[in-house]
């Protein structure tokens, strides 16, 4: 049984744990729920245990035109595209979601005080290339016009309210994420040189006029100069250019941990640069962020509402098999354990890759060559995350920048927290903080560490971490809910791009189409949306409908 000190030392460092253990764990942090994806149902799929249920021939069968496996951003976006393309009838589209709640890692929660995120919590203002996403935002009524280059003008109340972020360092909050205070002229020179390098990549175009780093990645260049960045770590790339300023390396490391659950030594240089450059506008400045109190759950709620009864949750799809003579047959297990079949003309599998491999018969049955296995392992490496929602009765005191949306602690291995009420303009009274912790290092080991710590322990880690910046946190705390994401997101480690390209994972297999942010190699709502729309448009074309693409 690990002691409190062991747990804090594991996640926050030994020296900090020694200090933190002098303070008792505030008792409200023991109140709260532990959430996680439904492991039981997930494991039934993984072990193939449910396949036996489909041995008998006389199972109830339903026919739909298009079956969508997975109700996360990719599946819901695919459904959105199909419905908008005219497949709006009762038996046109059915979405099967394994979890009881749709939305994948973009899901959110709600309390009497506020909605709050459980995962992804922002989308940068889309570039003109993200055409389908802009259509979605137009539907949401948040696009007010367009700039000359086609960048949408987003409604003010959806753009992250200033001050966007602040950084805590030795007792004081500073605006922004780069630690300006105490920086030497050499630090600033490196920071400028780094930004210049980012600007160079932002302006870079290949022979076909494509960007090196752009969202959606389907529009990005596959030029050798870009792909070369996949071969080295971000850390090595920085060293080679003399970027050794600790605060610059901290900033880049923070970015890699924040978006990928990778340290600067694990993330590829491609990933490190993608983090910064993909969200830069034509002026080489970072794009503004769009956010909502519950983060990207706002988008998921909209899409799920649109899907209506087409979306069925708590339903496990355990088998997807192309049928002779066209179409596919799905083996489906309902929440109560009853098995049934679904016949579909087309299927869009939007499950994460490690699930897709288990349920799509041709993938499951294909002999796995060792070269393919290596590529799969490199292309689909998953990070483990802990997310804690801290419910507070009031606002914590702070010296320096009084509040911000994103709050990061320079000395901490955590990712800090975002404030759910920030975007609503409610600046006093109770609120909810969403604290994030990405476990870097080997994925399997990270998952073991994640799951070994209990609700109390994760709550303690979160509260101890934040108490260093907010001494009064213990008095404000009402409850702490914790979400353990074992396979949170795909991770762009060194060599991931090449492995992904070799696998051709977006290519349909007969009537089975694929969509998931995994297929882009970075976990972003925008990528999931683009894949969902792409797969939907493939299906629309295969069904012989003549609908122009919105991508």
């Amino acid at each position: 049984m690990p002691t409190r000190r062991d747990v804090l030392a594991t996640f926050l460092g030994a020296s900090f744990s020694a200090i933190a253990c002098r303070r008792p764990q505030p008792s409200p942090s023991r109140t709260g729920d532990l959430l996680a994806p439904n492991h039981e149902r997930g494991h039934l799929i993984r072990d193939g245990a449910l396949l036996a249920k489909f041995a008998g021939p006389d199972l109830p069968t339903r026919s739909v035109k298009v079956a969508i496996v997975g109700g996360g951003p990719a599946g819901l976006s695919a459904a959105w595209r199909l419905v908008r393309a005219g497949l709006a009838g009762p038996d046109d589209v059915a979405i099967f979601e394994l979890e009881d709640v749709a939305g994948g890692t973009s899901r959110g929660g709600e309390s009497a005080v506020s909605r709050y995120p459980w995962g992804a919590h922002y989308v940068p203002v889309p570039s003109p290339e993200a055409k389908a996403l802009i259509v979605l935002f137009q539907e949401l009524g948040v696009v007010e016009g367009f700039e000359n280059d086609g960048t949408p003008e987003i409604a003010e109340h959806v753009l992250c309210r200033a001050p966007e972020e602040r950084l805590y360092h030795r007792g004081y909050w500073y605006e922004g994420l780069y630690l300006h205070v105490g920086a030497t002229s050499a630090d600033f020179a490196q920071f400028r040189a780094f930004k210049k390098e980012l600007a160079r990549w932002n302006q870079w175009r290949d022979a076909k006029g494509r960007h090196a780093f752009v969202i959606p990645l389907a529009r990005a260049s596959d030029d050798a100069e870009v792909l070369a960045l996949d071969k080295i770590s971000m850390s090595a790339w920085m060293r080679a250019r003399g970027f050794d300023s600790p605060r610059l390396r901290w900033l880049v490391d923070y970015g890699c941990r924040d978006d990928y659950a990778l340290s600067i030594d694990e993330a590829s240089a491609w990933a490190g640069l993608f983090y910064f450059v993909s969200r830069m506008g034509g002026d080489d400045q970072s794009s503004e962020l769009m956010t909502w109190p519950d983060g990207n759950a706002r988008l998921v709620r909209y899409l799920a509402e649109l899907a209506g009864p087409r979306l069925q949750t708590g339903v496990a799809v355990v088998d997807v098999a192309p049928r002779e003579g066209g179409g596919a047959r799905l083996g489906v297990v309902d929440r109560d354990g009853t098995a049934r079949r679904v016949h579909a003309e087309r299927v869009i599998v939007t499950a994460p890759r490690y699930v897709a491999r288990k349920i799509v018969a041709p993938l499951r049955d294909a002999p796995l060559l060792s070269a393919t296995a290596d590529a799969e392992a490199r292309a689909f490496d998953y990070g483990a995350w802990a997310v804690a929602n801290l419910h507070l009765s009031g606002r914590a005191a702070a010296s320096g920048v009084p509040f911000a949306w994103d709050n990061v602690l320079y000395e901490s291995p955590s990712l800090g927290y975002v404030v759910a009420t920030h975007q609503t303009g409610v600046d006093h009274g109770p609120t909810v903080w969403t604290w994030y912790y990405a476990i870097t290092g080997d994925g399997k080991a990270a998952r073991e560490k994640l799951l070994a710590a209990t609700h109390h322990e994760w709550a303690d880690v979160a509260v101890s971490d934040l108490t260093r910046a907010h001494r009064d946190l213990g008095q404000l705390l009402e409850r702490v809910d914790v979400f353990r994401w074992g396979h949170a997101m795909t991770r762009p480690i060194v060599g991931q791009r090449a492995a992904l390209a070799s696998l051709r994972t977006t290519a349909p297999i007969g009537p089975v189409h694929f969509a998931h942010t995994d297929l882009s190699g970075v976990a972003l709502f925008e990528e999931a949306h683009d894949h969902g729309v792409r797969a939907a448009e493939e299906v629309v074309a295969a069904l012989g409908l003549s609908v122009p693409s919105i991508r």
Partner: protein
Amino acid sequence: MGEPMGEAIGEPIDTIEKGEGPAKEPVPLHTPPKRRVWGPPAVLPAPEPEHIPAKTTATLLLVTVLVIATCGLVYELLASTLASYVLGDAVLQYSTVIGVYLSAMGIGAWLSGRVERDVARVFVEIEIAVALVGGISAPILFLAFAHLSWFRVVLYGIVLIIGTLVGMEIPLLLRILRERYAFKDLVARVLTVDYLGALVGSLAFPIFFVPRLGLVRTSLVIGGINALTAIASTWLLAEEVKERVSLRVRAGFVLALLIAGIIGADRITLLAEEGLFADEIVYAKQTTYQRIVVTRGRSTFQLFLNGNLQFSSADEYRYHEALVWPAIAARAEAGLPTKNALVLGGGDGLALRDLLKHPGLERVTLVDLDPGMTGLAKSFPLLRNLNEGSLHDPRVKVVNDDAYVWLADEKNAQTYDIVLADFPDPNHYALGKLYTTRMYALMKKKLGPGGIIAVQSTSPLFARKSYWCIARTMEKAGLEIAPYHVFVPSFGEWGFTLARAAGTYATPLTPSRLPELPFKLRYLDDPSLRQLFVLARDMASLDVEINRLDNQVLVHYYEAEWKRYL
């Protein structure tokens, strides 16, 4: 002004003691003769248990007289000053407080005659009581003023208690000292030192105590000196005082309490702020949202939110007339009545007061974040008098909510003839959002046909960029604007922006005359109304960015501009 009176009337009390002293002298004889050192006069050179030479003891006791005289005068001055700070009318407060105090000293002198035995012990006990009551007098009085409607009862009650206790001190000491001096020397020396103490107190109070420590800390420190005197007396009067240890413990307890007050109060209460304000604080409260402080000067009072002046009662009418009447005038000029108004912020009820004077006004909704502020405006007498009870008017509906959040809530769909924004200056991000394009777009949605907006827009002279940033932001939100300003002595040049939805109108936005009113305003008439809209060259437009939720440039402009003055 009070000091000479204190001294003058101090004399008769001693005289009374002198007069009564001999008559009461048999008292000790009535009590069973004890081993009292002061029983037979000849015992004077008796051996002292704690080795203080008799001569030194006598001198030190005279020093005690000096100290208690100083303290006694300071309490009197404290109460007078505090009363005139919070209640105004210094002549009345000084006269009544000194009157009550001195007559109470008379009561004390009379009561001292009732002390028949253990005079020295009683003296020490009185010292401890003075230390306690005098020491906490100023904090108690401030708290009473802030929270009780019967402040005067507490004021005169405390003055009465302190006066009575102080009145007992010198007579008792005279009796203690009578064996050590011949009568004529005794009276001469004690009274000399007593008056000298009065001089010390009267000089130290205005020169050292008030400017350095403020009233509350002065009160606690002087109480501490009394407590120390009590402790010292137990040694000086070691021969006469029984139960010395018990007395020392009690005095030590009071001393500790006062020291705790000095330390603790620094963190929690007005003490820390006294130095920040030019005038005395008469009300201070930390609400969930802000710190509200009311200070009182010679004949005016001021309201501060988070240390920033919101108004001075001396000239707030200029500000509030300028906020309210141009909007009403602009509507009148377009032939429109003003029946239904929305006030955002303005929890002090002063803009309301002016609005409610408009004869045609039927309903006002006031949206202010802080129930602490609207509550104060409803019930705090100084403020309630100034706003003429506007928050109690049946035409007024008070909503305690963040104006931004309230406006964004689609449930609140009603429209208004005029919308007035009376927010604190944008010196913080939480306030900056109230000056954004988003906010003005929301305000615009609240306008009925021909609706007019007026916004307090900080100083176009001291914070010219901030002022024009607000104006340009309003334009960006689809409003036609008319910038204007007024001179408010306690603020300086102050700016406002009048606005209506951009469009085509028969009449200009800028009004040229006030509406027909059955009374005259204090500041505005038709020519001065027109003057408001003339901005001189040093307040003219500048190139500025638009203040949006996602950039909050105004907060940065504002900080940079006011930094030059503060």
